[in-house]
C-alpha cells in the first residue's frame, strides 16, 4: 500500500476519532463575581396621585340592577331587543300563514333563591319615541330624563321559581307574558310584533321596581349569554306536497342587544377626594404620578426584574372579588387635583403595557417592571398610571388606596425595585 494512501486514510481516521473524543464540560468554579450583579432599591415619597370622577359606567356589566345600596339608587333598567332571531325578523312573523300565540319577555335572576319580600316589577315600552332610547355606554342619570319620553306600561309581575324536576338548580325568573296584544290606558290596542316590525322601532323596554326597594336586586345581563330575551310563540300553516294542511307550532327568541341600569350615585365623600379611589358605580378612577428621577442614576443597561412593584395600601379590612386594572397613561395629565363629573373620560391608556396587579394582604402590588424598563429605554414617557375597576366588580363597591400627602406614614405608597445590571 502506498504511503500517501496510508497517510490519507490515517488522517481521516484521526480527525474523526479526535472530533468524537472532544469534550466540553462546565467547570465548577467559585464565581462570586460576574459581569452581572443583582441589586435592590426601595423608593419612598415618590408616588402621588389623585382620583377623578366620571359618570357611572354601568354598561357591559354582567348584571342588571334594581333597588338601592350604599347610597346608590337604581332608577330603572333599559333593554333593547334584537330585530332578528336567527334569520327571522318581526316582519316575517306578520305573514298570513302565521298566528301568534304568545309573546314573553324573560329576565333571569342572578341568584338561585327568591327574595324574601317579593317586590312587584313593572315593564314599560316606548312605541312612540323614535328609533333610539338609550346608548349602552353613554346613557346615565345625568343625560337621561324619563320625562322626555312616553313609556307605556305593559304589565306588572313577581319573580317566580319553577319546581325542580330532580336535583337540578332552578334559577328564579321574571316573566312578562301575553305581551302580543297590549291594551293601553287610553284604550288603544298595540300589537308588539307589529310595533317591532317597523324599521324605525326602538324595540326598547323599561323595567323598574314598583315603589322602590331598599336592597339590591340583580338580573343577568346580556353579557352573560343568559340575559333578557323576547320569545314569540306562533303557529304556521302550510300545505305540503300532498295538499295536506300542516300546522307547525314554533317559536323564536329575540335576545337583548343592549341593556343598561341607570342609577344615581351618592354624594362625593372626603375619601373620594383625598384618596386614590376605584369604583364603577361612582365612576371613580385614579391617576398615579411617579417621580422616577432616580432612574437616571441607575446603570445604563439595567434590567428590572418582575419583582419590581408599586405598592399601594388599601383602606379596608378585606377586599374580595375586586379587580383593578393598571395601565400607563397615553395623555398628559393637566391637573392633579380631584375633578368630578367629567362627561367623557379624558385619559386614554397605553394598552400595550398592561401592568399586572396582585392583591397581597392589605395592599396591592402593581408590577411596574415593563413600565420602568421602557421609560428607561425612552420607548415610553412617564405620564403616570391609570387605575380603574373591572366590569366584573360589584359596581356599588369602592376601594380606597392611600396616597402620599406629604406626611410620613407607614401606609404611604412606595416602589420596590429589583434589578440586574452589568
Amino acid at each position: 500500500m502506498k504511503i500517501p494512501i496510508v497517510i490519507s486514510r490515517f488522517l481521516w481516521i484521526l480527525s474523526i476519532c479526535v472530533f468524537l473524543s472532544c469534550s466540553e464540560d462546565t467547570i465548577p468554579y467559585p464565581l462570586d463575581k460576574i459581569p452581572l450583579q443583582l441589586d435592590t432599591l426601595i423608593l419612598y415619597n415618590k408616588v402621588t396621585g389623585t382620583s377623578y370622577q366620571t359618570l357611572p359606567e354601568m354598561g357591559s356589566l354582567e348584571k342588571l340592577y334594581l333597588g338601592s345600596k350604599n347610597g346608590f339608587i337604581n332608577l330603572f333598567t333599559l333593554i333593547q331587543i334584537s330585530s332578528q332571531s336567527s334569520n327571522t325578523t318581526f316582519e316575517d312573523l306578520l305573514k298570513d300563514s302565521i298566528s301568534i300565540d304568545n309573546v314573553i319577555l324573560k329576565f333571569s335572576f342572578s341568584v338561585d333563591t327568591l327574595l324574601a319580600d317579593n317586590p312587584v316589577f313593572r315593564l314599560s315600552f316606548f312605541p312612540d319615541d323614535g328609533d333610539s332610547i338609550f346608548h349602552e355606554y353613554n346613557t346615565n342619570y345625568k343625560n337621561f330624563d324619563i320625562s322626555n319620553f312616553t313609556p307605556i306600561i305593559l304589565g306588572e309581575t313577581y319573580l317566580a321559581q319553577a319546581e325542580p324536576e330532580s336535583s337540578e338548580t332552578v334559577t328564579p325568573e321574571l316573566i312578562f307574558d301575553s305581551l302580543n296584544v297590549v291594551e293601553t290606558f287610553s284604550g288603544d290596542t298595540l300589537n308588539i310584533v307589529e310595533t317591532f316590525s317597523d324599521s324605525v322601532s326602538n324595540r326598547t323596554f323599561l323595567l323598574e321596581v314598583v315603589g322602590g326597594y331598599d336592597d339590591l336586586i340583580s338580573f343577568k345581563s346580556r353579557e352573560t349569554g343568559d340575559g333578557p330575551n323576547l320569545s314569540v310563540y306562533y303557529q304556521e300553516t302550510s300545505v305540503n306536497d300532498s295538499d295536506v294542511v300542516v300546522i307547525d307550532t314554533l317559536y323564536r327568541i329575540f335576545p337583548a342587544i343592549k341593556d343598561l341600569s341607570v342609577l344615581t350615585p351618592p354624594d362625593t365623600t372626603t375619601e373620594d377626594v383625598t384618596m386614590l379611589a376605584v369604583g364603577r358605580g361612582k365612576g371613580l378612577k385614579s391617576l398615579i404620578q411617579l417621580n422616577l428621577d432616580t432612574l437616571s442614576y441607575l446603570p445604563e443597561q439595567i434590567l428590572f426584574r418582575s419583582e419590581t412593584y408599586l405598592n399601594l395600601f388599601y383602606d379596608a379590612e378585606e377586599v374580595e372579588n375586586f379587580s383593578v386594572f393598571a395601565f400607563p397613561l397615553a395623555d398628559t395629565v393637566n391637573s392633579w387635583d380631584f375633578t368630578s363629573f367629567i362627561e367623557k373620560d379624558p385619559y386614554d391608556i397605553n394598552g400595550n403595557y398592561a401592568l399586572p396587579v396582585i392583591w397581597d394582604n392589605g395592599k396591592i402590588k402593581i408590577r411596574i417592571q415593563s413600565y420602568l424598563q421602557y421609560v428607561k429605554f425612552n420607548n415610553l414617557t412617564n405620564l403616570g398610571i391609570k387605575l380603574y375597576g373591572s366590569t366584573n366588580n360589584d359596581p356599588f363597591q369602592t376601594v380606597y388606596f392611600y396616597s402620599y400627602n406629604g406626611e410620613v406614614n407607614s401606609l404611604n405608597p412606595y416602589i420596590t425595585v429589583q434589578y440586574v445590571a452589568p
Partner: protein
Amino acid sequence: MLRLKISLILSLFLSTLGLGQTLLNGYGLGSVQYTRDAASLGISSTGLLPSFRPHVSVSNPSTWRVLQYTYLSGMYGGHEVEQKNNTLIHGRSDLDQFQLIIPIKQKYAWGIGINPYSDQRISLIGSETTTVFGLDTLTVRNTISGFGGINSFNTSFGFPISEKDILGVTFDFLFGSSRQEAILTVDQKDYIYEQRRLYSGVLLKIFIQSDRLKIKKIPIDTYLALGFSAKPLAIKIYSYQPFEDNNGSGYHDASSINRDFPDLASNPKPIKTYYSNSFHPIELQFGLDSEIATRLHFQTEVAFWKDLASFKHNLSALHDQISSRNQLNVGLVKFSTKVPHEIWNRFHYRTGIYIRQIKLDYSQKYVNQYGVSFGIGYKFGLANNQIDFGFSISKRDGLIKDGEIIRQFSVGLSIGDLWFVKRRER
C-alpha cells in the same frame, strides 16, 4: 499526491469543529498557544529551536533558508486537562498551524501562515447560594461562558545579515472575535448578558540565528528572538442589553410563548466601547543548540514574556490577566540520516522537559507548570515530506486546588515540493 493533499485539507477543516476549554482561557485574552508545531512540542520548545530538521524550526524563519524544498505544513493538535479535585476532564482539538514555507535559493526564505493565537472558550458555573433581599430570599447562581478567540495571519522573512548570522522577521496580524456570556440565575430564572469583542493588532518578532559561538571547538548555534507589538491590540466591545430568558432558549428571541423581557423590538442598540491599548506584550527568547554526538543535539531555551499594557479594564471572564510568563526547557533530538537506508534511520527522535511559570496580575498568583515531552518525525518521499508527532504531559499548580494534569498532542504533516528551480535550456 493530490488525494493526499485533499485529505489533509479536509481532515484539518473537520478537526476545527472540535470544542474545548481550560481555566486559563478565562484570564485576560485567553490562553495563548506556546508551541505551534509538533516537532517543537516533542522537545518542549516554544518553536525557537531547530527540532524539525537539523538547523530548521518550522516556527523560526531565520532557520528556513537551509530547506531544499517548499513546504506546506499543517499542524493539528489538542490537549486534555484533567482536574484532580473533581475529576473533570476537558479536551480540545483543532488546527494549530497552517503554513507555507518557501526557501529561495537557499539564501532567503518567505512564509505565510495562519494559526490560532489565543483561546477564550470557557464554561464555568458557580455554586448555588441563598441571598436575602429585603423580605425575599433568593437562590442565585452565576455562570460564565466564553467562545471564540484571536487568530493570527502571519508572514515571515528570513535573510542573512552576515556570513554567520541570519535574521528572521515575523509579522503576526492578529484578528478575531469572541463572545462572552454571563448568566445570573435567580430563582431558576436566567438573566443573560452578552458581549461581543472584535480584535485587531500586529505583533512583530525578530529572530537571529548565529553560529559564531564555539566552546572547546564545539560549535554552538545560538538563537535569539525579540517580540513586541507593532500595533497594540485594539478591542472593540459590543455590550448588549441584558435580558430575562423566560422561554429558556438561551437567546433573546421574540417567541410568542413565554416571551423574553424586554421585547426584542424595543431593545436599545449595544453599547460600543473601544480600547486601543489592551494588550502590549514583549518577549525575549534565547536558545542554544549543540551537536553533542552524531546527529544527536542538545538544546536548551529560556523565554520571558510580559504584558506591558495599562490594562486596568476588567475584560476577562475571571477578572484577572496574565502579566508575565517565563519558561525554561531542555531537550534532546536525534535526527535522521540525510540519506536513510534503513527505516529506523528515517525517524527523528525527540524528548524534552520544561518548567513554566505564569503570574496573574490582579491576584498576584503564581501558576507553575512542569512537563515532559516526546516526539518523533518520519521522513518520506522524494521531496523529504515529513510527518511529526509530539506528545507532552505536564502538571499545573496554582489555578485550582490539587492542580491539573495536562496532556497535549500534536500531529504535523509537511509536504515538500520543488519551487524556483532553474530549468535547463533545451
